[in-house]
């Protein structure tokens, strides 16, 4: 009896080692490629919302980690700083809309240094397909309606969906999702206006932590 158990345990252990080794090997082989893919994907999104013509620094490397209530929750968010000859041009801030219809909506908001919105993209969401998923650029160009908008002290009430008297359309059948996105973009823009000088003077990088 005991012998059988020992034998089985040995066989199981051998298989576990072999399987782990295989997975480890494949991981080692694909690691670099996966990192490059992620980087390329990120850069593509960043170039979509910040005109690459006016930026000449390495966007991927010049990033910061920040935490602020205005960015939706207390998780660290990444800020990518875009500069032209060391002069600040724009920043892309990842932000969370915590009040989506089903869970958080992860956004990236790019703002020009003067505070106007340069572009917004949805990174991740679980909104209803066909209704709330129009926040994706693939499904609808609604998300581009933020471009060139500016939050000032006077027009804050306009930063809402038209149902609430604001300047952004809601979608048929979905008000909660656009409402959450509009609020998140507004808060991010406010955050940027309050902190932009500080952000561009920071010298640390989020890549150092990796």
């Amino acid at each position, binding site marked *: 009896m005991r012998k059988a158990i020992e034998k089985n345990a040995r066989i199981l252990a051998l298989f576990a080692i072999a399987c782990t080794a295989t997975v480890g090997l494949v991981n080692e082989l694909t690691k670099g490629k996966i990192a490059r893919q*992620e980087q390329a994907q990120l850069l593509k999104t960043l170039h979509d919302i910040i005109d690459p013509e006016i930026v000449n620094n390495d966007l991927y490397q010049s990033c910061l980690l920040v935490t602020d209530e205005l960015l939706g929750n207390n998780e660290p968010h990444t800020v990518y700083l875009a500069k032209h000859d060391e002069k600040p041009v724009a920043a892309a801030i990842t932000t969370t809309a915590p009040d989506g219809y089903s869970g958080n909506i992860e956004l990236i908001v790019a703002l020009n240094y003067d505070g106007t919105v340069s572009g917004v993209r949805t990174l991740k969401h679980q909104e209803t397909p066909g209704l709330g998923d129009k926040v994706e650029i693939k499904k609808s160009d609604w998300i581009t309606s933020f471009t060139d908008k500016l939050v000032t002290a006077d027009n804050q009430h306009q930063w809402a969906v038209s149902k609430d008297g604001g300047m952004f359309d809601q979608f048929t059948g979905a008000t909660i999702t656009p409402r959450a996105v509009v609020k998140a973009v507004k808060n991010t823009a406010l955050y940027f206006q309050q902190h932009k000088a500080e952000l561009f003077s920071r010298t640390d990088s989020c890549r150092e932590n990796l």
Partner: protein
Amino acid sequence: MTQEVATPELADSEPADNELQAQRAALKSEYKELAWQGLWKNNPGLVQLLGLCPLLAVTATVTNALGLGLATLLVLIGSNATVSLIRHWVPKEIRIPIFVLIIAAFVTCVQLLMNAFTYGLYQALGIFLPLIVTNCAIIGRAEAYASKNPLAQASFDGLMMGIGFMLILVVLGAIREVLGQGTLFDGIELLLGDWASGLRIQVLNLDNQFLLAILPPGAFIAMGFLIAIKNAIDSKIAERQPKPEEKAIERVRVNFDAS
């Protein structure tokens, strides 16, 4: 058979040849049977109804369906082949944990490879890629077939079952994509590379997406129709086949009074 009669002098070598031929014929018919079982008669999607979770969840477009189908196919062939190779060394008490280990390892490898080479699709499939581990079709084939049969047949069984599953996924994906968004092969370039973006077809022009088709309930309904169609075809075939004539049982009249 006629040869045997005509050339009796070769009688010595005949039995061996015949045996080989018989073996080959048996093998051929086994492969045929495996293909028939996997693709139609015992299709994991339509008949065994295994792996319903990914089947219903990711088939909103052909691209997603094809991606998951290919991933499942790879895992199925790999796990069937490995299970068949090691079948003599695995004591039967611990076979299930070992099968699970092997399947999990294959799924993780496929997942890593897809992450590296089809990044967009990997993002689109999300959690359903690692969930292939829990697809009962895979462990089912490992247990029912691969653990008892040689490498070649087991791999072939994996191939056929995988293709059968993938076909159902793709058909379901096509139905839902056409009804839901009016397109076919939308986003196929995520799977096959940029050259394939021309494959996208606009079948219908829909002002609004047909929500039911996109959401999981639409998948259930479409799946129900597919199963119904398959059963209808099966019963048609069965009808057409000449029925083995029922032998009329002749009653022997035992009538003692009459005589």
